[in-house]
């Protein structure tokens, strides 16, 4: 479903601020794969997501999604294939537009937008049905501006919008990191539900090791622009967070993962 070959990305090449963000990344995801991604701050996780979504064009290498070579596609062209949820709950929705208008935008992903009405009564019924799944009572607030919702509600809506049209690839970039534990747990549950129901091929960055081990069928660890660990389901299901830390040390030849923000428990 997703094939990344020999992707490199360097920021500010040739200046004192030069930063190699991705080093020769090779990655293949089969349809329905749910891959969790961990790695310290600055490891290149977000850059990898942006390379896939078209936010950054890689310096070298190719990206293939659903048998289409998309390396040279713009971000908005790739959007027909990719659903995305960002870390910032404010990033995935338009605050001054209503819930139903936001959903109408999600609904028209991959379609030509012309002069048909964005929200029709037929679409409205569909929106209500899908909103009910979030269990937030949003199905009765279609005409509320999204800016009035809480961070958790906005992130739930972002997730619904990102997956509304079953994209070929779902990219989640620390999408629970900005939420309090209770709301984060709710979004995790929703994520599992949506991904499993629709068998979405998913790449999920998280800073929560337990999440990384418990969710999905494969785990990647990024460090300094490289994939240093690629753990398959059989191994992953046996591992504890301590095993994961040890695996990191081994892969790094003794270097310890010193990162306060990692949630181990």
């Amino acid at each position, binding site marked *: 479903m997703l094939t990344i070959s020999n992707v490199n990305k360097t920021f500010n090449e040739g200046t004192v601020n030069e930063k190699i963000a991705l080093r020769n990344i090779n990655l293949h995801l089969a349809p329905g794969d749910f891959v969790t991604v961990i790695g310290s701050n600055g490891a290149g996780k977000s850059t990898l997501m942006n390379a896939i979504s078209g936010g950054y064009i890689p310096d070298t290498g190719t990206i293939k999604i659903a048998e289409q070579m998309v390396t040279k596609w713009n971000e908005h062209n790739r959007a027909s294939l990719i659903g*995305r949820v960002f870390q910032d709950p404010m*990033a*995935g929705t338009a605050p001054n537009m209503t819930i139903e208008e936001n959903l109408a*935008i999600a609904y*028209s992903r991959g379609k030509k937008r012309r*002069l*048909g009405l*964005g929200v029709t009564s037929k679409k409205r019924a569909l929106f209500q049905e899908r909103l009910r799944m979030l269990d937030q009572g949003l199905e009765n607030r279609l005409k509320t501006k999204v800016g009035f919702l809480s961070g958790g509600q906005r992130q739930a809506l972002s997730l619904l919008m990102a997956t509304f049209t079953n994209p070929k690839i779902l990219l989640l970039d620390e999408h629970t990191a900005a939420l309090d534990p209770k709301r984060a747990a709710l979004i995790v549950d929703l994520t599992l539900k949506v991904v499993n129901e629709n068998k979405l091929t998913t790449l999920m960055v998280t800073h929560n090791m337990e999440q990384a081990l418990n969710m999905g069928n494969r785990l990647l660890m990024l460090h300094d622009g490289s994939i240093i660990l690629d753990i398959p389901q059989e191994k992953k299901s046996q591992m504890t967070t301590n095993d994961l830390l040890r695996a990191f040390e081994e892969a790094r030849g003794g270097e310890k993962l010193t990162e306060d923000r990692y949630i181990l428990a």
Partner: protein
Amino acid sequence: MNFAIVSAIEQGLLFAIMVLGVYLTFRILDFPDLTVDGSFALGGAIAATLIIDGMNPFLATLIAMAGGAIAGTFTGLLTTKGKINGLLAGILVMISLYSINLRIMGKKSNLPLLREETLYSKTQALSIPDITFGGITWLTGEAIIFLVMVLLIKFLIDWFLHTDLGLDIRATGDNSRMIRSFGANTDTTTIIGLALSNALVAVSGAFIAQYQGFADVGMGIGMIVVGLASVIIGEVLFGAKSIMRVTLAVVLGSVVYRLVIAFALQAGLEATDMKLITAFLVILALVLPNIMKRALKMGKTVKGG
């Protein structure tokens, strides 16, 4: 006095089309577009020149509208494809238009339309009765036609902003990263928004030229500030809850603005002071909410502490 009010209402309605255009860029696209000063005069210049050449005034006004759309497209291209800062892109097109408008007007800075058949003279020829009440004329027959036309444009904009394309344009101003992740080309939506806005501005300029009986190369100077003042006055007085509400509010804001100016003139201020007063109104409207917020906060900390 009554005459001043009546003509303020007429003017307010014609300028309201320009204000709707400014609303589209300033509020919907979140793009302060200075092209407006140039495209307003462009509309007047094109319409006046073509009418003097003997063209049907309706057609001349339509061509003026197309001219405005092209001007807006240029600003859009400069800022999206050329990556020029939005304010600067607008200024560059505005300044270019000053030369272009003079060329269109055959190097004359003023084109009188005195004996020409214009949309205004056609409107007058309809002789629609004035609305008088209590011995005072409130709306002239012409103003009724203007009102119907402006409301028609308002409803068209309302409709457009609720289509799929309209939602994309609104989201471009609201959260451009989000709308790109759903497949909209924000360069295209920005250009469409700017083209539409300046088309409206040019139509307004064409109407004003026909209404006042001349086009002048300087007729657009300060127009963006008038537009902003009207948008802000409208929103403050009449609310901005929904698109339909706010488009009506800015139309009314345009009329209120003209009434304020009429009263200021009545009170003895010079016509040449009006730009200063307008700028002052905008500054006040932009600064007051911040001051009020700070005052509220201070009040709270004083009580709390």
